[in-house]
């Protein structure tokens, strides 16, 4: 039966900014959906506020709206575009919630739009916990005993019945936001209290604890003919109690007999039918009591999820693509399996390998946060690895994390330490795997650790196997072939083998190659080799038979960016994907290496060949060797995937691998202080006074010389890891003491910190002769806030041509001096009209996708072509870049784009249970970004705030309390707010200043003052009660704690917008003014581009 012919246009809702629990996997699924809809000849409309996505590339839809995903804005898009249908199941919880809101508001009916791939009743049955319990019961299965509450009184009554500990889960939140385990009444008050706030329906579910049970998930697909298949089973290494996103997970399930597995499958199918999931994907989670086998259904998601992305990558079954086809009316048997070509999608993939996913955390960014893992997801990314057995896959996954301490180590463990390790492993944290493995190494039994952790004994035995193997390696008289094969069979890296045998890694590799102990590359084929596979989706294993086919053209290898982390996220994947698209279009054969299952780059049909591998030197060299022996390698791109591939550049070059684009020597030059200073000196450019230090004495000497405050940071980092502004010697000493990674190879950089400077970011292309400025971004927050966390605007709104010309020339001088061939990102600071060069990175930057979306010029594609020999002049002539002008010559009526960061503070709690501080600083903490684009800055800024889930108010109460240095600057904006009718609330000195300036500020009580005689609440009480609509609070000096912290924490907890810098406050006032004056309209990127084209005459 063919697809529905009545549908002519479809609106796809994206998932918005990358946040914890909703990340790049929805770009992957959304991009697949758009490709299917386009192939089917439909008019495709997309809304997604996240510019760092492939799906928002204008060629993937007919109309691409980078607009806030709110019901109001989406309704405007519907009114303008009049789509026949909305596909809401590929954009995570955001899309689903928006669709529900549009249904409730009557907008769907008003515009006669149909939801496809989902129906509201099914969504509600799936997501409403009480209704879902009924579903489970009707299917003859069990749920955990539970009670729904809407108030704390109800919660305490329920606790009497269920007993502690119990699980607290708010309804309709994503990534388990607001969930937690309550061990006592105090915990319950805290978690359920916040949960009632988070839930859009003020609804919280309390349930019996199934802590420590085995946890499983099935990924399912259903078509309109009621054909249902299980795409993948996933088993959690960590038992129930740790969010599945934070757990190590394994596919397929390893410890179920067929009877138990079929029981889960039967329940899942019954539930999917009873819920009435329309067509498409869904997942169901189960818990199994380890000693009885009692099965409890935990929950289901009636949509494509993070797990579906993992399942797609783990099996090769393209869930999002197929879900989209099903939503158009195809049935599973009508859709071919792309991998085998001759068999249909109506089957269940079978795996002849093991997939292990490990989460990547960012607790180092939030030192105050409690690192206990709970049912609230806290990881910011994940790495996946494929091996022919669990040990190989686990160890590959761990080294894919690129995190110190993530790989297992085998130094002898003192038996005296074992009880402590066992005790520590009771509480799940990021260190639990290592604690368990170390305890086993020290002689603990599997039984002891099973009792402490609930981790299945089969997995514990696998850790023992790894430990025993390590012992064999250590005892081996020499690094011989037998020992290498044994080590490699269980996933040991050359580095680990080196550590165990006191041999340098390079020597291990040399011996290994001499003995011809090399990995083979197997294929992910959905069918365990039952049928021939036509898609070269490979993974390495130390097994017998290699499957890489000969290729006719030498390949271009693109190194991806590995697991998402703060500072290196989806933006880099975007550049990698663009490079492969541009190079394939230019006739090259491309190869992608990456280990992040959440990405578009690891879709098997994005490149000619995909190697799902860790991005370590060893693993990358083996892929290169495989490519070399099957047809040759033209070169490797290291400049697109961020710091991960960049740091391999020199070692790859040393191994004789041709590096495309900017050379390793040039990369090193930009990173090397002294050499880079020389480039600046020769070009007549200024950098803030600086120096490098490898000890406190060094650092003190430099700081004394250049004067405090100084900005200190380790070299070779991304995302401002470990970066701090230090105001005095005492803090400098503390910083150096804590910075453990200082070595002569990795010194600390000490810079003069420029106060009150405007920061400028530039992305540009250089081909050795010509410069092409992609875009110049003006930061809204002053220098000192990490550029990744700062809002910025393009084109700059407060610079005249003279500044822009100086920036352009400085960029040219640096690009030429460094020797860039491709992309460069430079950060400048403008202070007292002096242009300082802060740093230069000769690679794709985090802002490349934003600039590309804002200007309509695909920089990463151009960079890839420059890397293979094209000149900027040729690219201009070929229409790949604008024929004339560039990002520094945008006309005055060009649209204004604002990038705003999205921060995860509300996810993290201190051990006391309060939210961590939301202050911005030189260390990056944002997980994602949004773009607001409009004719003028004010509306663009307002849209960016709405898109970042902190919509500015247009009326109500504003609380203002600022540091002394800021008091002068806030008078005018507060006055304007007051004139606009906002009630101004304030405390202490700020209130005095405002009143002296004729602004009627109501004085409220400080936190320290406590409640008033007549029960007047403090400012925190008012915020918590939801009476304040906007908080303006700037921190004073080095004092982060105190009143300011309490105020910001309260606001963060309830989702009230908080402004922490004066410059942002100014922008906010402009935006509020605009929101009150004009109705927003929605404009697609395609419309912006054609207007810009008309304006520039290009």
């Amino acid at each position: 039966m063919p697809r529905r012919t009545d549908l002519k246009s479809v609106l796809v809702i994206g998932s918005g900014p990358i946040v914890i629990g909703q990340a790049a996997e929805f770009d992957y699924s959304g991009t697949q959906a758009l490709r299917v809809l386009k192939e089917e000849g439909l008019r495709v409309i997309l809304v997604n506020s996240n510019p760092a996505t492939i799906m928002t590339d204008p060629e993937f839809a007919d109309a691409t709206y980078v607009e806030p995903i709110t019901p109001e804005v989406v309704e405007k898009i519907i009114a303008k575009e009049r789509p026949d249908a909305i596909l809401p199941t590929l954009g995570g919880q955001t899309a689903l919630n928006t669709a529900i809101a549009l249904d409730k508001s009557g907008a769907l009916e008003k515009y006669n739009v149909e939801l496809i791939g989902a129906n509201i009743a099914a969504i509600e049955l799936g997501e409403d916990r009480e209704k879902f319990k009924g579903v489970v019961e009707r299917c003859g299965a069990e749920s955990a005993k539970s009670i729904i509450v809407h108030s704390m009184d109800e919660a305490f009554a329920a606790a009497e019945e269920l007993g502690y500990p119990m699980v607290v889960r708010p309804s309709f939140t994503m990534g388990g936001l607001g969930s937690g385990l309550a061990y006592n009444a105090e915990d319950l008050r805290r978690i359920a209290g916040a949960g009632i706030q988070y839930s859009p329906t003020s609804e919280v579910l309390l349930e019996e604890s199934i802590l420590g049970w085995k946890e499983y998930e099935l990924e399912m697909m259903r078509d309109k003919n009621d054909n249902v298949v299980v795409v993948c089973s996933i088993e959690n290494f960590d038992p129930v109690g740790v969010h599945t996103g934070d757990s190590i997970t394994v596919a397929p399930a390893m410890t179920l007999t067929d009877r138990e597995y079929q029981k889960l499958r039967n329940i899942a199918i019954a539930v999917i039918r009873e819920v009435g999931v329309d067509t498409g994907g869904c997942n169901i989670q189960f818990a199994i009591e380890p000693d009885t086998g009692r099965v409890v259904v935990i929950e289901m998601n009636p949509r494509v999820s993070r797990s579906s992305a993992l399942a797609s990558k783990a099996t090769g079954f393209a869930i999002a693509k197929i879900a989209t086809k099903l939503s158009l009316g195809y049935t599973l048997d009508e859709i071919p399996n792309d991998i085998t070509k001759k068999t249909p999608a109506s089957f269940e993939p079978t795996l002849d390998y093991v997939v292990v996913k490990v989460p990547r955390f960012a607790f180092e960014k939030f030192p105050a946060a409690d690192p206990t893992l709970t049912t609230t997801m806290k990881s910011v990314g994940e790495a996946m690895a494929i091996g022919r057995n669990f040990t190989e896959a686990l160890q590959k996954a761990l080294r894919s994390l690129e995190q110190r301490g993530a790989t297992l180590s085998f130094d002898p463990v003192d038996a005296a330490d074992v009880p402590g390790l066992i005790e520590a492993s009771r509480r799940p944290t990021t260190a639990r795997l290592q604690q368990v493995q170390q305890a086993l190494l020290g002689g603990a039994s599997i039984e002891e650790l099973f009792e402490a952790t609930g981790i299945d004994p089969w997995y514990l035995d696998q850790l023992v196997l790894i430990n025993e193997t390590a012992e064999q390696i250590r005892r081996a008289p020499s690094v011989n072939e037998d020992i290498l094969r044994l080590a490699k069979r269980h996933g040991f890296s050359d580095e680990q083998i080196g550590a165990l045998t006191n041999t340098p890694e390079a020597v291990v590799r040399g011996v290994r190659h001499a003995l011809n102990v090399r990995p083979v590359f197997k294929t992910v084929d959905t069918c365990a080799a039952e049928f021939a596979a036509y898609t070269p989706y490979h993974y390495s294993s130390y097994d017998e038979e290699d499957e890489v086919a000969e290729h006719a053209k030498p390949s271009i290898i693109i190194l991806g960016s590995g697991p998402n982390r703060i500072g290196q996220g989806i933006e880099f994947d975007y550049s990698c994907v663009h490079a492969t698209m541009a190079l394939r279009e230019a006739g090259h054969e491309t190869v992608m290496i990456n280990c992040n299952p959440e990405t578009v780059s690891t879709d098997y049909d994005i490149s000619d060949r995909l190697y799902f591998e860790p991005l370590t030197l060893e693993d990358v060299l083996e892929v290169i060797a495989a490519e070399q022996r099957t047809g040759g390698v033209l070169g490797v791109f290291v400049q697109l995937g961020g710091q991960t591939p960049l740091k391999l550049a020199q070692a790859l070059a040393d191994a004789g691998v041709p590096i495309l684009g900017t050379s390793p020597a040039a990369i090193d030059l930009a990173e090397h202080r002294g050499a880079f200073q020389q480039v600046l000196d020769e070009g007549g450019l200024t950098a803030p006074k600086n120096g490098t230090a490898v000890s406190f004495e060094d650092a003190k000497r430099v700081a004394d010389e250049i004067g405090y405050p100084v900005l200190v940071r380790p070299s070779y980092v991304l995302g401002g890891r470990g970066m701090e502004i230090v105001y005095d010697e005492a803090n400098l000493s503390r910083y150096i003491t804590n910075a453990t990674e200082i070595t002569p190879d990795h010194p600390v950089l000490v810079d003069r910190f420029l106060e009150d400077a405007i920061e400028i970011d530039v992305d540009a292309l250089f081909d050795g002769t010509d410069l092409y400025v992609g875009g110049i971004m003006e930061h809204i927050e002053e220098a000192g806030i990490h550029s990744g966390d700062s809002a910025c605007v393009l084109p700059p709104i407060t610079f005249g041509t003279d500044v822009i010309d100086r920036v352009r020339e400085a960029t040219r001088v640096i690009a030429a001096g460094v020797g860039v061939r491709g992309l460069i990102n430079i950060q400048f600071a403008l202070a007292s009209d002096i242009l300082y060069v802060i740093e230069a990175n000769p690679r794709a930057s985090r802002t490349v996708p934003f600039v590309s979306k804002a200007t309509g010029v695909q920089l990463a594609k151009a960079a890839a072509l420059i890397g293979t020999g094209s000149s900027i002049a040729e690219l201009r002539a070929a229409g790949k870049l604008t024929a004339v002008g560039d990002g520094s010559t945008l006309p005055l009526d060009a649209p204004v784009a604002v990038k705003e960061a999205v921060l995860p503070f509300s996810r993290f709690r201190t051990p006391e249970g309060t939210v961590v501080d939301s202050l911005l600083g030189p260390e990056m903490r944002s997980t994602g970004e949004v773009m607001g684009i409009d004719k003028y800055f004010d509306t663009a800024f307002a849209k960016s705030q709405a898109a970042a889930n902190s919509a500015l108010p247009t009326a109500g109460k504003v609380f203002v309390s600022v540091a002394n240095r800021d008091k002068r600057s806030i008078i005018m904006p507060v006055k304007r707010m007051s004139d606009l009718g906002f009630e101004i609330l304030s405390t202490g000195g700020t209130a005095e200043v405002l009143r002296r300036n004729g602004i009627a500020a109501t004085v409220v009580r400080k936190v320290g003052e406590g409640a008033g005689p007549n029960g007047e609440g403090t400012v925190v009480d008012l915020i918590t009660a939801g009476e304040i609509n906007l908080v303006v609070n700037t921190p004073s000096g080095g004092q982060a704690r105190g009143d300011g912290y309490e105020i910001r924490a309260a606001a963060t907890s309830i989702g009230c917008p908080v402004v922490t810098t004066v410059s942002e406050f100014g922008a906010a006032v402009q935006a509020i003014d605009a929101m009150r004056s004009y109705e927003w309209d929605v404009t697609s990127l395609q419309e912006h581009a054609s207007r810009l084209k008309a304006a520039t005459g290009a």
Partner: protein
Amino acid sequence: MTVHEIINPTPAVLMLEDGRTFRGRAYGAQGTALGEAVFATGMTGYQETITDPSYARQLVVQTAPHIGNTGVNGDDAESRRIWVAGYIVRDAARRPSSWRSERTLEEQLAEQGVVGISGVDTRAVTRHLRERGAMKAGIFSGSDAERPDSELLAEVRAQQGMEGSRLAEEVSVDEAYLIDPADHGWAGEPLFTVAAIDLGIKSMTPVRLAERGIRTYVLPAASTFEDIKALNADGVFMSNGPGDPATADVQVDLLREVLDARIPFFGICFGNQILGRALGFGTYKLRYGHRGINQPVMDRRTGKVEITSQNHGFAVDAPLDGPVTAPEARFGRVEVSHVSLNDDVVEGLACLDIPAFSVQYHPEAAAGPHDSAYLFDRFVDLMAASKSKESI
């Protein structure tokens, strides 16, 4: 496994008929195992697989890399013993984990004298069999593995191939036995009595019937029509089983008597091939067979897809575009009711004029998905319809 064994395992070798060899370590019993090498792709259900009599005289390659993780228990065996002639796995579990586990798989294999090999590139073996077809093979472990390869190869080639092999009688029970519905949760009086001819029957099959109120007498393969009549059976069932259906003339003749008597008939797997041959169709050997629990089959009457459990190396050669009159015209019209979506192989036959149908796959699903359980209901309905016709 001791630490010593990690680094110095007992050797084993898998030798294929065409000379390709794979070296690994001994698993289970040590010695020599000869048979036809086939691969099975299920990710769960190894205990059911090794005890499935249809695998008699076969060396089974498990494509799932970890085997033995949940050990062996007293409930999941599909017959009284292990039938696979040899077992080929990549990573054998050292320590099983399941609340139902009673012993390790390796102990079970060793105790029943089943020679296995672990640590081989099972995917390479599978790809080889996929490209060149299922073939004769041998596993040699311990001291047998140290014999010269040329000797091993000669021994592999000297064995009889699967084509022309008559094995049903070898695996069948000697004595009839009864499976009572009361033992399987059926509360009321039994609805019907079925005579099930054991050609290698899996234990779950009579259980599925019992759950529907059917008393099943499982009869030896050599049973006669008189034996069936003596039971006053309402229906006849023929099971799965090993070997070449072209050798099953005894059962084909028996089934023709059953069909002539219009006794409702249901066949599974080998039983499907026997129905095919009884109707006059041929059977043929597939290159590498269907052995897995993820096989999509379309029920051509409903247009619905079921994910099925399969284990067959032979198939019925019947026209897909039916219905047609059976070559044995006295049985009237027949249609291919089920077809494999992977390769269009006949997966089910339905007679339109007599009460008989069969499927090539395993609705009893042990191991495998339960999508096709409705076929047992269909058999019950067929017996009910037949009975009501009689009473009229």
